[in-house]
């Protein structure tokens, strides 16, 4: 029983495929959010007990463990909670243009969202910085309606 670098076992192929499932997922919070975007609004769900606002909202509060369905509007401005400067894509290939990706907490929300921040030198981005959503001129009611974020 020792490591033998020269010995090779045979290899055979097999697959595990996530497309073999008919997943059921709760899409309510995502739909509320996407629909709100038509009106250039960030919509979440608020817990009446603890007051936490989730964006997108689940059907129950994780902390209070009660059903929640109060739709509330949040600001389309928010705070950078954290960020990074993407320099390679998801496969690890270097990107020609570096991109600031930030965790943003919309004012009035208790959860964070990931968005791309433009209009600033990446090295000047700071945690705690205020940013605002820049909307498409004509919104369609989907998550692509926010074009980018820019510093306020």
């Amino acid at each position, binding site marked *: *029983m*020792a*490591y033998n*670098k020269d*010995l*090779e*076992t045979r290899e055979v192929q*097999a*697959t*595990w495929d*996530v497309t073999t*499932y008919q997943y059921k*997922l709760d*899409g309510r*919070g*995502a*739909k509320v959010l*996407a629909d709100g975007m038509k009106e250039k609004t960030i919509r*979440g769900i608020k817990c009446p007990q603890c007051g*936490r606002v*989730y*964006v*997108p909202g*689940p059907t129950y509060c*994780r*902390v209070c463990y009660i059903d929640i369905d109060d739709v509330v509007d949040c600001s389309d401005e928010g705070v950078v*909670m*954290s*960020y*990074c*400067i*993407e*320099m*390679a*894509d*998801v*496969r*690890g290939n*270097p990107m020609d243009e570096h*991109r600031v*990706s*930030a*965790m943003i907490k919309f004012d009035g*929300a208790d*959860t*964070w*969202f*990931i*968005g*791309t921040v433009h209009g600033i030198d990446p090295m000047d981005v700071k*945690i705690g910085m205020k940013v605002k*959503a*820049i909307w498409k001129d004509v919104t*369609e009611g*989907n*998550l*692509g*309606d*926010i*074009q980018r974020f820019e510093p306020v």
Partner: protein
Amino acid sequence: MIMSNVAIAGVGYTPVFVSKRKDVNIAEMISESVATALENTGLTPDDIDAVTFGNMQTFEGLNMPHLWSAEHILAVDKPTIRISTGGTTGMSTLQAAYYYVASGLYDIVMAVSWEKQSEGDSQVGLAGIVMPEAMVMVQHGLDLFGGGGLSAMGGGSTGAASFQAMSYLHHSGADPEHIDKMAALERSNAALNPYAHLRKKTSVEDIQATPFIAWPLRFGHTCPTSDGATTCIVMSEEKVRKMTDGNVAWITGLGSATSDPSTANFLEGQLTDPAEQEPARIASAKAYKMAGIKDPSRELDMAEMYNGFAHQSLMWLEKLGCCKEGEAHKLLDAGALNIDGEIPTNASGGVFSTNAIGASAMNRPAECALQIMGKIEGGHKIPKKIRKAVSHGWGGMFQYVTVMVLADEPMKS
């Protein structure tokens, strides 16, 4: 109320942890660690009462692999349980062995953990965590690969780890160079460890020569994917007295806790900052209380933590109470985290240098146990006597933490 003392009596690793073991198949590879654990404890297969077994099965695309590995893990005709909790799987599997013995149900339990990442697709495995959730958001117009205002895969290939690193730097006052320094320290520790995967003495300059993936994280801050297996043999106090020379590592405290998944743009908003890691506090507080540790920053002699990325060692030291918030990088600068420092941190090189993912969180307590028993093979043996050690696992989707405290003496009843 602890009903009985439980110890790790022995550890068995595969002969190596490398990118690709071509000379053995999965079952053969696992059996190497099992046989070594028996050899190291002088036990025979008949001595084992039960087996706990864990890996991350979607990484190899194999459902319930213990079924056809039963012979190779010496499980045939024995009670056997499969545990899987993500990155924490190794420690969760060891914790199950602890509870099996502490419950009085069994006296000697073998905990087996492994991964043969070369036989699967780690990216498929990882994507499988949130793929359906991401797809719902894509249906709602989310740009999966970024570039749009809202992007699903923000953070590039390091994902939320980059956000975690930046948030950690901001709140701790550490500089990005501290991540380089921690990376160099752990890679150099790994160079001394014959069971480490990436074994090359590495300088801060070497790390800084690697490209950034997503600032502040570089390629040199990320862990490898490895093939390897680890087995621990867990024993009741009575069996330790009867069947060993008494040189064992006692499990004096343990805990686990979960928060919510780091699902940022996937379906439901997340409440917690990825650098917050409240579960680490919850789980460690419980483990320390059980172990009678009042001030972990003074009482612990070493720490082995789950660090898929180099900044995490510093972060976990603080979250596990090994030092105050914002002080880990000062300890690093002072040399306190070195193998011969006050709180040697990942003397093994950590997950950051060796990552057979299902085994990764078992290697942490296993390393602590070997240091306590004085049985470390290689130059990463900590020179001082180790009496109390903390080990830690991290998994789920950024949300789950396991902790195990080990000591050279059992708890007094």
